[in-house]
């Protein structure tokens, strides 16, 4: 061994640049924007910066499609000393992340203009954060997963603090940063213990090791696995690691919240799925109960607390916890069907949430002030297209027919039932009903006419923290909870952000009516993950 080392030169690993092309494009675009901003006197114009970002994300999307073609021809390949893998799964995630970047930069454009914040840094950080998410999906080594997680998260911490005129923004960023740093430390400790138990950080080699060895004292392996699950659960906001979610979602600038909700979930679930199903596939009996418990807690707590929120951003935070529970349903099943459903759900949810937060951005007005549920009254009349998009996106989150939400929910539920986890499926259905109530309430508020008197079948808002299940019927009664004279601010709808929101709604409807392409994409991605 030693003599061999002495005589051989360092052999650099071969690099398949196509496998990291989306990441390279996203980071390259960010660096390009940074360089041009520094050189142009007075800074880059906003629309130019946004256009460059959209172009970069489109280029990443197209390069993913080229990758897709290669994967179809050659199958999954690893490169750069097996640290990076290019398969259907990584390509699927790259497509999802790139789509989210396009929508989020369109929506962010108007926000930054309104709040008078310089655009360039926002877009640079969003692009690099997206690169981190893509990298999480294509990493085949725990060290790379950790670095990608940090690239994704640290950029998000700064983005959350992006509005200097809102104290909540800074507070949310500090909370997110401290809790996020803590969870990263837990995650990296999990990696260390896994390395101690298997002697490698490479996922393929972990599979080989676990296939060839039977651990008689698997405590170390299980501790490593458990700590890594904690790290991922924090990222995807699963109960009981969700405490940061409501405050950060509320405090962050609205377009950032949408982007964060989508991209952090994609990245977190991508790495979670790859680690659990690919590296620890043989240990499924160990991690399935953990995922089961996380799913039950996320489904119930997310739905129950969602109903009692008055603030739309907090409501969407609990909604995101609830959705995390649904996606965990598919992970828990650990079958082709389950993973495929989870992937479809992930993609559909990411687009929906960016769109919903786009609407929230536009309705909230200057300084993100009007996030109360009452600000949405009569949105459909005040701004028909925006209101229609909101209605579509909310109904899709509730799982209505002719939207991607229906197939997403049906998919994970049927996957859970098919492996016999019918109690879990039952809990999921109950939580879907509870959260559906909250979505419907917001939908009805935005459909109602502006000047309608409050005493006619007003859908009240629960402010108490009492059990919502019990009050489900009661809240439907007449209540004087909403102020009669709400300041209905004029919704400043600008074409750029509206385009983003409309694209999100269009995606939700089109792939809800014709789910075939997205489903087959998810299916192919699943096959490459499970082999």
């Amino acid at each position, binding site marked *: 061994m*030693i003599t061999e*080392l*002495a005589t051989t030169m*360092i*052999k*650099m*690993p071969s690099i398949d640049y196509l496998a*990291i092309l989306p990441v390279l494009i996203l*980071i390259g675009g*960010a*660096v390009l924007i*940074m360089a041009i*901003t*520094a050189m*142009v006197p*007075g*800074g*880059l114009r906003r629309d130019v910066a946004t256009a460059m970002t959209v172009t970069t994300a489109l280029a990443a999307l197209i390069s993913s499609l080229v990758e897709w073609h290669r994967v179809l021809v050659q199958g999954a390949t690893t490169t*750069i*000393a097996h*640290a*990076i893998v290019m398969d259907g799964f990584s390509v699927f995630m790259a497509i999802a992340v790139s789509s989210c970047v396009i929508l989020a930069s369109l929506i962010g454009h108007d926000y930054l203009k309104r709040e*008078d*914040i*310089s655009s*360039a*840094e926002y877009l*640079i*950080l969003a692009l*690099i954060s997206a*690169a981190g998410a893509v*990298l999480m999906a294509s990493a085949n*080594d725990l*060290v*790379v997963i950790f*670095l*990608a997680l*940090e*690239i994704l998260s*640290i*950029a998000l*911490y*700064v983005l959350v*603090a*992006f509005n*200097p*005129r809102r104290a909540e923004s800074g507070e949310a960023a500090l909370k997110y940063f401290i809790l996020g740093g803590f969870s990263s430390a837990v995650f990296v400790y999990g990696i260390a*213990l896994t390395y*101690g*138990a*298997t*002697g490698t950080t*490479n996922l393929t080699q972990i599979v080989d090791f676990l296939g060839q060895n039977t*651990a*008689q*004292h*698997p*405590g*170390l*392996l299980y501790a490593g696995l458990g700590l890594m699950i904690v790290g991922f659960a924090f990222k995807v906001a699963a109960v009981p690691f969700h405490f940061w979610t409501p405050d950060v979602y509320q405090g962050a600038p609205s377009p950032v919240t949408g982007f964060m909700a989508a991209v952090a979930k994609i990245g977190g679930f991508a790495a979670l799925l790859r680690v659990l199903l690919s590296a620890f596939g043989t240990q499924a009996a160990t991690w399935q109960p953990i995922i089961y418990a996380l799913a039950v807690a996320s489904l119930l707590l997310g739905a129950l607390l969602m109903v009692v929120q008055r603030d739309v951003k907090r409501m969407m935070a609990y909604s995101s916890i609830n959705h995390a529970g649904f996606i965990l349903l598919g992970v828990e099943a650990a079958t082709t069907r389950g993973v495929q459903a989870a992937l479809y759900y992930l993609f559909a949810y990411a687009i929906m949430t960016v769109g919903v937060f786009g609407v929230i951005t536009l309705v909230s007005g200057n300084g993100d002030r009007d996030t109360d549920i009452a600000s949405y009254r009569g949105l459909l009349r005040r701004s028909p297209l925006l209101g229609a998009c909101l209605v579509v996106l909310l109904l899709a989150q509730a799982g209505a027919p002719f939207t991607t939400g229906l197939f997403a929910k049906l998919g994970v539920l049927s996957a859970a039932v098919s492996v016999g986890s019918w109690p879990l499926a039952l809990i999921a259905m109950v939580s879907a009903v509870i959260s559906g109530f909250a979505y419907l309430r917001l939908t009805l508020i935005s459909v109602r006419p502006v000047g309608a008197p409050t005493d006619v079948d007003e859908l009240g808002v629960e402010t108490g923290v009492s059990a919502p299940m019990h009050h489900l019927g009661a809240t439907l009664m007449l209540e004087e909870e909403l102020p009669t004279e709400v300041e209905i601010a004029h919704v400043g709808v600008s074409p750029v952000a509206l385009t983003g929101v409309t694209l999100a709604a269009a995606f939700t409807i089109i792939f809800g009516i014709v789910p075939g392409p997205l489903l087959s994409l998810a299916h192919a991605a699943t096959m490459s993950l499970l082999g």
Partner: protein
Amino acid sequence: MTSLLATTVAIPDVIVFAAGAVMIMIGALGVITSRNPVHAALSLILTLFGIAVLFIEQQADFLAAVQVIVYAGAIVVLFLFVIMFLGVDRNEDLDAEPLAGQRSMAFVIVLMAVGAIIALGAEAHWVVGPHSVSGVPGGPYQNVYNLGRSVFTTYLFAFEATAALLVIAVVGAVVLARRSGAANAEQPDGQPENEEVAS
């Protein structure tokens, strides 16, 4: 496969380990009990130095050097800078508990965590062995050689990916440093100033 506690350990190793462990413990206690934040930061140096001693005991010489230079040197100096900026004369009120019972809770949780780690170390089978695998003791190929190799082979991509973190650090620092300026003096013309990015 070996269990950590089952391996026989030479007497000098035990002595070095004990010395390092005592340094770490004294330093760590100093960090949480010092009223003066400067003293706490200095105690942290002792802890980090003790960890460097443990690295040497594990024959990870290069890591020990990095530990002293980067952590005991640069990072604690950074801490001290921040403390000096905020004012050294402010003593922390250690008796205040913002969250009732948080100290006893922390004590219990730490005890549990330590117990779990000891149990894991004693019972579990470690594949990587109790000693550093990156260097052969006394052999001609030392840590630096092996680390250098893995940075350019096995962990090439991870090494390169840290570049993205540096870009985030630069941009993030500019964004967060500007917020104080933006809060104090509103830019009347709304033109973002971008000089900082160039510097």
